[in-house]
């Protein structure tokens, strides 16, 4: 009986999963683009820009995700037209930016500064030396910690529930409401779906890290 319901409702759950993954992809992309920019500023930038970036990063790491979602959805939409999905991308994306900036900052700083000096001593501009020498190494260093961020943010997409994004968790809740009960089994299936996507992503990123590693870079224990 209940398995029939799950089977019937599977298209809804898969649609919810697809919304969750779209949200995840968008917020991670926002986080990579802005996070890397902030990291570069924090390491190489002028002190005034560095200060602004640090303030941003502290603020977004210091406020709970749910509160950020509520702030952006109910607060900011008063001034700017935004769907709940867009509000979720913005709130979670900026929060991820703050976390990712620290991943990238650490990765950039783990590249021995002597290599930057060596590139500059050959007549490379600093910007080019960062692009050619520092970033290829820093991004390799970043894959491990970034995998963790992927897991965290995948799970954080379920928080978009609170501002009405119809993602996987909310689809589960709808099924429970419309079929009077079965909380354990429906949320169990939802949990399994998150878990599978989580593991698959981790496995893929681990494979990727191994594929791009070269001798001299520490590998994570498998």
């Amino acid at each position: 009986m209940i398995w029939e319901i799950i089977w019937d409702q599977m298209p809804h759950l898969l649609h919810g999963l697809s919304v969750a993954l779209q949200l995840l992809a968008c917020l991670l992309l926002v986080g990579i683009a802005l996070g890397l920019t902030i990291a570069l500023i924090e390491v190489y930038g002028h002190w005034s820009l560095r200060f602004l970036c640090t303030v941003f990063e502290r603020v977004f790491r210091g406020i709970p995700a749910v509160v950020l979602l509520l702030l952006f959805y109910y607060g900011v939409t008063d001034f700017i037209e935004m769907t709940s999905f867009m509000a979720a991308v913005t709130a979670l994306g900026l929060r991820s930016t703050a976390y990712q900036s620290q991943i990238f900052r650490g990765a950039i700083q783990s590249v021995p500064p002597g290599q930057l000096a060596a590139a500059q001593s050959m007549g490379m501009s600093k910007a080019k030396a960062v692009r050619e020498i520092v970033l290829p190494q820093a991004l390799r260093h970043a894959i491990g910690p970034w995998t963790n961020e992927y897991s965290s943010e995948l799970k954080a997409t379920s928080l978009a529930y609170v501002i009405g994004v119809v993602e996987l968790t909310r689809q589960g809740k709808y099924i429970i409401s419309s079929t009077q009960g079965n909380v354990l089994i429906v949320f169990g299936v939802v949990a399994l779906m998150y878990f599978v996507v989580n593991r698959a992503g981790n496995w893929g990123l681990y494979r990727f890290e191994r594929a791009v590693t070269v001798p001299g870079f520490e590998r994570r224990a498998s």
Partner: protein
Amino acid sequence: MSALLSVQEIRKAYREEEVLKGVSLELDKGTTKVVMGPSGTGKSTLLRCINYLTPPDAGRVWLDGEELTRRNLNRLREDIAFVFQDFNLFTHLRAIDNVRLGPRKIRGHSKKRADEIARRELERVGMSDKAQSYPAELSGGQQQRVSIARALAMEPKVILFDEPTSALDPELTGEVVAVMKLLASEGMTMLLVSHEVSFARSAADEIVFMEGGHIVEQGRPSELFANPQNPRTRRFLQMITDHHDPDTPDRLAGAAR
């Protein structure tokens, strides 16, 4: 001024401490100079000030008649290669790619030409068979030879060596010294900070002795080693020749025999 590299009145202070108190020196094309002296006397700082890796507080540098400025810095740096004490090879690149990077990405040679240069220079330092190795797979001596090849691949007018063998154990020092001797004999213009007495004796045209941020004495190695004028130079040379020079019998070893 006919010198290839000319350094005038370089001064550098870290906080209150003045490390270089107005150092001048000239290097003619095809000659090798070795800067020696006790640690903490500003030898490495002098070298780093020449290509502005450490910007000097005052003083001027000319390369081939052109004065180094903020504007032409990157262009002139292409002609002033620098070899570091701790190699600073690019970890993510194979030996051949470390050497190829300069000709390709800085000099702007074609892929084929950059490749030819890289292979030629690896050959010159005897590292052809390790072309495909990553720096982490090489010994210290091998890494330093690759880093010398990387410097040579820029086809520079002068190479600055900052204690190129100080991070190596004696066994590996030999192979790097051999490469530097080869370059000196081929007429490369080189300025070294080094304590390698055997190299300084046989390959240097002139020794510069520094102490306390000044040049206190300079001259041909035969004269300077045999008959140093300055008492501080004499003490220092006595100390390093006693302890480091394989040509001179070690007094302690002699006593134990």
